[in-house]
């Protein structure tokens, strides 16, 4: 067999595997959209229709009438953006001090940080839940946002990144009379954009998909985030599959839009976590 023929055969095989896999990936999504556009009667027909007949756009209107999905978008967005800004700020400030400043007890405090990296979320969540009840923060935005604006992992990751930066720029800034805060703002932060973008993406996505914490904190409909909003929608319309799938589509849309814009950082971020290890 000639070399090019062999190569072409391999190529054909790769495409065959990839395409059949891709179809397996896409069919559930297609089925979801298809169901979301059916009326309740045509869901329960056999064999199932692939293309809904008639197409019922009303389902989406009904979902929005029954549950404040746009409010859920807004809540999820507010929480995720505040946490992302908070984590970037608190982590980068602390990471700068841990990487570059000398103060007594610095390494001991950092070791304390490191020792909590492996503590499971469940351990920390129980006392935090009790604390929220004691200070009366249950069912508030404060409870959703504030415990999540600090990140041990973020501090650790940024410290490692700052340590890898060359010190020459800081030295010359110091000679020019730049303060420590000035060096942080005008030297360290601009040099660290890739690491900050990665941390921002991880934090945003983590917050956006967070499930258990909002579930135990929030009771009011108007304060729910998207995942728990969808969960309670399911509680109410547990067998109305067209409406449930319309709500599911509505939950997925922002994630897909956000991913489309942050795809590069998202992928780079995953790679970075593996390489840093």
């Amino acid at each position: 067999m000639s070399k090019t023929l062999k190569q072409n055969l391999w190529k054909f095989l790769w495409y065959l595997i990839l395409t059949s896999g891709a179809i397996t990936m896409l069919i559930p999504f297609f089925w979801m959209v298809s169901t979301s556009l059916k009326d309740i009667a045509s869901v329960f027909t056999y064999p199932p229709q692939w293309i809904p007949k008639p197409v019922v756009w009303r389902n989406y209107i009904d979902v929005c009438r029954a549950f404040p999905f746009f409010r859920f978008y807004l809540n999820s967005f507010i929480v995720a953006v505040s946490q992302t800004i908070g984590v970037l700020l608190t982590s980068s400030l602390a990471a700068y001090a841990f990487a570059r400043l000398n103060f007594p007890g610095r390494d001991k405090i950092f070791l304390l940080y490191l020792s909590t990296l492996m503590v499971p979320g469940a351990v920390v969540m129980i006392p935090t839940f009790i604390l929220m009840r004691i200070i009366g923060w249950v069912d508030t935005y404060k409870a959703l946002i504030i415990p999540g604006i600090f990140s041990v992992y973020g501090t650790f990751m940024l410290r490692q990144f700052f340590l890898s930066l060359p010190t020459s720029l800081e030295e010359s800034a110091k000679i020019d009379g730049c303060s420590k805060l000035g060096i942080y703002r005008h030297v360290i932060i601009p040099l660290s954009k890739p690491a900050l973008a990665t941390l921002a993406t991880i934090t945003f996505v983590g917050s956006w998909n967070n499930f258990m914490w909002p579930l135990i904190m929030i009771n009011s409909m108007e304060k729910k985030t998207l995942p728990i909003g969808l969960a309670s929608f399911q509680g109410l319309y547990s067998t109305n599959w067209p409406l449930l799938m319309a709500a599911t589509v509505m939950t997925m849309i922002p994630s897909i839009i956000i991913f489309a814009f942050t795809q590069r950082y998202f992928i780079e971020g995953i790679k970075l976590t593996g390489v840093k290890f």
Partner: protein
Amino acid sequence: MKRIRKDLSGYLFILPGLIGFIFFTLGPTIFSLILSFTKWDILSPIKFVGFSNFIKLLGFHKTPSGIAPNDPHFWYYLWNTIFFMLFIPVSMALSLLMALLFNQKLKGIAVFRIIYFLPTVCSGVAMALLWKWLYNPDFGLINYLLSKIHIQGPNWLSSTKWAKPAIAFMGLWTGLGGFNTVLYLAALQGIPKELYEAAEVDGANAFQKFRYITLPSLTPTTFFILIMSIIGGFQGGFMTAYIMTGGGPAGSTTTIDYYIYNNAYQWLNMGYASAIAWFLFLVIFAITLLTWKYGGRRVKYV
């Protein structure tokens, strides 16, 4: 005088983060350890009970028919958690396979990557709800497709036999092009081309190149994914089960994390929940150390 000012500025920088660390990480970690030796429902006064939470959790007692665990639920849920973790090697092998495919120089490969990554992007609750519909026994897509090849599909999520495998299968599907595939792909792209060229000169075939170059070069990544999957696996399974099965039928999809959720936030057994959470912590800690010690030796950095 100058030294003191220098000291102060360092503390100012860590202060915001440190306050959060004390209130939302370190403090809760210590407090939950204390809680694990108490019985407390938040409403009535706290009561110290020594090791009795741990005895209830891990202990056994004699019965006329033999020895029985004090909390049989816990052991069942631990088994459920481990059952889901048994799929980690399969999932890793699939991720590697996908990464090898994505690493081929083919036109339009970026489109495939995005398609396979889609389930990872979409919110987990939405994915779980979608699969609940796919698994619907009478009108779901999966049983319809099975009926095409003359197989009568089971009542997936309502069967103690099939609910766990069904959820595990969904996990495999979701992870196919996900995080681990991206990690493997990055590692594959980091292998020096010269290694393959040298092997070709020596007359190595495709399988030999994979076995003696690719696989050893990937061991650090494999090791990383394995540890992260084990840590995640012990803490996983709550959201999916909450949406798809509510932990049922008959507790067959309840994981340790779900049991902690029920104890802490449904039944307000703060002490017992903390004891389970600390047990989880110690198991994760021990297994990570063991994997590190045993696996770390085998990691070869080429």
